[in-house]
């Protein structure tokens, strides 16, 4: 690792382990993620990709080792301050995780409301992001009335509306048709160009080929140099 790269490291993992009782989900992961890079975490199902992402936003806690995110030591963040960590991330889930009883607009606006932004700012920002993802015409629709591709676009809008430093995407094209997947890839590229660090966990070879970026391979919870794609 060069001194320059070290300086730019946004996320650092030192000998991180994560196990659930006897099952070892991740073993001895030491890894840096750099500012404004586009990075793929890939590997077969059950390799630990989702677990690795969850560790970054403290969706799970490392059993051993240290994780630093933008200078924050995750092991030392008190429960009451986790929201400050989470605001650095925009997370896109494979199952979208949209609130079914709230409209498209409300789902996206939630991020800014939670951050205590003013109503005028929220309205302008949400509408602008919804326009970018092509969902501005459906802002009053409830998520169950949207297609999978549309729901994922709303999830992307929600992930980026708070201008996060890091965008995490867990299998963002996993359950989408080719056209919708292409649109999501385009959107991820757009937000990366605007300065975000994008980390995508995927086993979608098409997605990995479509965007130039660093690739991290995971196999049975360990980093491996052997490409699996």
């Amino acid at each position, binding site marked *: 690792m060069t001194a320059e790269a070290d300086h730019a490291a946004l996320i650092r993992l030192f000998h991180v382990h994560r196990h659930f009782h006897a099952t070892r989900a991740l073993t001895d992961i030491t890894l840096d993620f750099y500012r404004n890079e586009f990075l793929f975490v890939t590997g077969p199902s059950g390799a630990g990709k989702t677990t690795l992402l969850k560790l970054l936003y403290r969706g799970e806690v490392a059993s051993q080792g240290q994780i630093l995110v933008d200078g924050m030591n995750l092991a030392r963040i008190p429960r*009451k301050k986790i929201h400050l960590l989470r605001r650095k991330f925009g997370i896109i889930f494979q199952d979208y*995780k949209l609130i079914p009883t709230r409209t498209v607009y409300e789902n996206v606006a*939630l991020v800014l409301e939670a951050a205590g932004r003013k109503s005028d700012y929220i309205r302008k920002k949400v509408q602008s992001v919804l326009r970018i993802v092509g969902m501005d015409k459906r802002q009053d629709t409830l998520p169950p009335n949207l297609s999978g591709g549309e729901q994922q676009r709303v999830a992307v809008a929600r992930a980026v509306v708070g201008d996060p430093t890091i965008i995490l995407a867990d299998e963002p094209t996993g359950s989408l048709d080719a056209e919708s997947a292409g649109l999501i890839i385009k959107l991820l590229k757009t937000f990366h160009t605007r300065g975000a660090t994008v980390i995508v966990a995927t086993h979608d070879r098409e997605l990995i080929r479509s965007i130039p970026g660093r690739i991290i391979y995971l196999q049975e919870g360990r980093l491996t140099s052997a490409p699996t794609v």
Partner: protein
Amino acid sequence: MLKRHLRRALQDMRSNRMLSLVTISTFALSILIVSSAMLFFVNMGDIMDGWRQGIRVMAYLQEGLNATDRSTLKVRMESLYGVQQADFVPKAQALERLRTQMGRQTSILDNLDSNPLPDAFEIQMIAASQSWDKVEQLATALEKLEGVSEVEYGQRWIKRIINIFNLFQLTGTVMGALFFMAAVFIVGNTVRLVLYSRREEVEIMRLVGATEQFILAPFYFQSLIQAALGGIIGLAALFMMYMLIQSRITTDMATAFFQPRFLSPLTLLGIVGCGMLVGWLGCHLSVKQYVKA
């Protein structure tokens, strides 16, 4: 932010109409029962005060006392502790008073050969010494005076009623406490059910960086609104009941010694405030449990 929480709380109440209705009804019923008891005690208290202030001690005199004896007795009575004034009531005046009190049924008095009533002294007590113990002490002291045949302070039975009233008051307080505890429990359960039904939403909010305060504030608002609504409904029901009863009292009963009154605006505010406090407490207990889990 406050507006957002309030809007969210109202949205939640709309989506969980049945639960909200149950909570509001429970509050209304609890407030109605507790405030009914309060209204009863306030009015009973007024009656008791009226009785207490009206305590007259009558010292009936033996036959054959002359004017000198009576004036000596007056001086001795007025020197006793707690006596403000002792007024002589001649037997003729006593009979006249009785005649006035009996109204239309005075014919029974017209047939009397002689006045059967004794001369008496009517003793007024100093306001500050009108406790039952003092009255009893005074009666004993008066009875010991030479020339006094009997002492009467008519409302001896009031003491027993006051004891019963005090017992009621204690029972009412315990009942009130029990109802409030039940309300805390019900609000707590409602909030727990709503939190449970929205656990995914709460989790998503946490993932997008919402603070616990942001997530949980609407639940507090919801509980406060439900408690306030329940309180207002309960008190409105009480007021209607009061108006109904009051109209009966004024037509059917003599009200010279008792003017029924409703709870003061400050008391009403206090009741609604207490209800809201109970709502907040119920919510807080559930939320605390949920956050820990």
